[in-house]
């Protein structure tokens, strides 16, 4: 309670005091006012007053009015003035306290606006709390949704909290701050028993940090004095906690946004990198987009294309005999021969994947087929040179498939995946693998044949259906023989109708008949490996019979 000094009351130059002085001078006897120590404040004293009247304020004598019995009137008046002054001071003190609090909050908000780092905000809040509510120690605990645990972004003062136990005892904390309450805890036995706070803590105060109704955590302050905290402290702490919660929430949202934007950018870059391997920029440009990143979420671009894969046979065995440098030169010279062939046939190379090449032909499949045949011819030429150098010939398989290549961005805003809907690419790659199986250098799917204009310019052998691994539909596989060297091509052309007869007998399970024709072809064209393949199969079925429900389709269990 603010102290009221009698000196200040009677010393003021105001109308009331002027009236008091006038009144005193009207009295017969000398009347004067003394403070509690007998010091004269007003009037003229005589040594021995007849009467002394105390001025009481809240049971405390703050001075005297001395004189005759009439001085009592003056004493009553001064007492009344003192009471008024005391009330005014009390009110003034309260207003000042509120104002100081307001000032604290005002300055605190201003500080909060200067940072966007949640940890800095937490530390700022704690420092402010300990400054405004004198404490020996303080911590802020926050529940991290990401980590699913309590974190301690800020601590200050003495080591009165055991941080590890604090973090690992959400149950106990639930009883306090995290329950969303704010209070002064008087019974500290549980917290001391659990070792969360030191034994010499005597007072604890906390306020929940929350946004709307979601509890984020709490500010906890500890003191070593008994009854260190008041209700006014609690109110202030709650205010600071609320302000800080909003700021931390905003800062975290901001951080999250920044992180997501960065992640999205990285994802796009990564998608760009990955997709570049499968979808060349030429392709994206052919769809009217500058780069892959121009392709927006939900955008989808689609085009019927022919995808061609080529792969060097037994490259591993071949490369084992070479130094890395020779290897590199070999692959580069191989690619250097094939690249121009692809480009001159309106195709573009998507990627050199070591010893294999993937190329895309956006127009007619005839481009892909011409390219494949010319590539085979280039390999023949290369093999002539190798023969001179006494090197073993190179064998390569070429497979192609025609279908839609859909490329787009799927997923939501936060997670974007480049869906190079690469079924066409996969199928083309699998068909290339089938060249090893059928021991044929050039295979295409029925779809390529279907989209092909000018079929009559080429010669094909139908090798039957396959069911690729993981697929439901059967796919007819066709061999194009135009790429063989002149001698081989002539032989295959001459046996073509025989081959077709043999295949139809084979599918009709007329294996005796098929065997006979395949043997005829084999005798005329002993280098025809595909015929050898079917010859072996036919012999096997003759020997072992066919499985139940056999249709002639080959089931591919590996890729």
């Amino acid at each position: 309670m603010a102290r009221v000094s009698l000196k200040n009351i009677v010393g003021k130059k105001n109308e009331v005091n002027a009236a008091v002085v006038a009144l005193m001078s009207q009295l017969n006897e000398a009347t004067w006012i003394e403070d509690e120590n007998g010091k004269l404040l007003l009037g003229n004293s005589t040594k021995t007053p007849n009467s002394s009247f105390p001025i009481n304020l809240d049971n405390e004598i703050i001075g005297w009015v001395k004189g005759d019995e009439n001085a009592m009137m003056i004493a009553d008046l001064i007492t009344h003035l003192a009471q008024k002054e005391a009330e005014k001071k009390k009110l003034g003190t309260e207003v000042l306290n509120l104002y100081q609090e307001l000032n604290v909050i005002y300055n605190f908000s201003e500080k909060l606006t200067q940072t966007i780092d949640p940890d800095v905000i937490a530390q700022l809040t704690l420092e402010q709390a300990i400054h405004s509510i004198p404490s020996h120690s303080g911590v802020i605990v926050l529940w991290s949704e990401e980590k699913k645990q309590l974190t301690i972004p800020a601590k200050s003062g003495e080591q009165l909290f055991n941080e590890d136990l604090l973090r690992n005892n959400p149950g106990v904390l639930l009883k306090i701050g995290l329950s969303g309450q704010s209070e002064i805890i008087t019974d500290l036995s549980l917290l001391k028993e659990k070792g969360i706070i030191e034994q010499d803590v005597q007072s604890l105060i906390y306020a929940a940090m929350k946004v709307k109704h979601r509890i984020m955590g709490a500010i906890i302050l500890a003191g070593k004095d008994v009854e260190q905290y008041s209700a006014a402290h609690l109110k202030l702490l709650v205010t600071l906690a609320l302000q800080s919660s909003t700021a931390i929430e905003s800062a975290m949202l901001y951080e999250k946004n920044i992180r997501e934007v960065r992640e999205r950018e990285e994802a796009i870059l990564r998608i760009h990198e990955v997709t570049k391997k499968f979808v060349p920029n030429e392709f994206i440009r052919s769809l009217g987009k500058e780069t892959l990143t121009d392709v927006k979420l939900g955008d989808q671009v689609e085009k019927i294309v022919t995808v061609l894969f080529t792969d060097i046979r037994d490259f591993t065995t071949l490369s084992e005999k070479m130094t890395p440098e020779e290897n590199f030169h070999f692959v580069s010279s191989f690619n250097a021969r094939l690249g121009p062939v692809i480009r001159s046939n309106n195709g573009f190379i998507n990627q050199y994947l070591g010893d294999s090449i993937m190329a895309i032909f956006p127009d007619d499949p005839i481009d892909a087929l011409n390219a494949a045949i010319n590539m085979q011819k280039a390999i023949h030429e290369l093999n002539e040179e190798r023969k001179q150098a006494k090197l073993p010939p190179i064998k390569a398989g070429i497979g192609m498939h025609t279908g839609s290549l859909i490329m787009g961005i799927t997923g939501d805003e936060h997670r974007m995946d480049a869906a190079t809907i690469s079924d066409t690419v996969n199928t083309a790659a699998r068909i290339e693998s089938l060249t090893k199986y059928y021991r044929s250098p050039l295979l295409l799917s029925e779809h390529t044949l279907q989209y092909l204009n000018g079929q009559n310019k080429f010669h094909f052998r139908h090798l039957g259906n396959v069911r690729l691994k993981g697929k439901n539909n059967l796919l007819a596989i066709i061999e194009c023989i135009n790429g063989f060297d002149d001698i081989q091509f002539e032989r295959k052309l001459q046996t073509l109708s025989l081959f077709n007869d043999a295949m139809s007998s084979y599918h009709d399970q007329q294996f005796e008949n098929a065997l006979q024709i395949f043997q005829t072809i084999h005798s005329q064209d002993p280098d025809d490996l595909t015929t050898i393949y079917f010859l072996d199969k036919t012999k096997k079925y003759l020997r072992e019979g066919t499985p139940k429900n056999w249709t002639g389709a080959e089931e591919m269990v590996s890729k």
Partner: protein
Amino acid sequence: MENKILIVDDEAHIRMLIEQTLEELEDEGVEFLTAENGEIALEIIQKENPKLVFLDVMMPKMNGMEVCRRVKKELELKDVFIVLLTAKGQELDRQRGQEVGADVYMTKPFDPEIILSKAKEVLGIE
């Protein structure tokens, strides 16, 4: 010049707050005077000759800037220490404060401690 402080603000609670903030100076014999507008303030300054004036800028009748200008420039009472008070967010540029001759310039809400220490400094009270 006596140890007098004049508090000028049209808002009663601000006058009360400043007075309460400076309360302890009363024991040092400092006398407080208050005024609720610029005209009254000007009268009191001429009559009572206070050492220190806390002067709100935004007031009816005569604003604080004008009071300050008249005191410092017209009446040439250069020894009157004038603290201009203005609301945050309505800060006047310091240059204008200097033009009218203000000694110090503070914003509201003010920090009570700063007000008190400034008053002690001006009045030469430890």
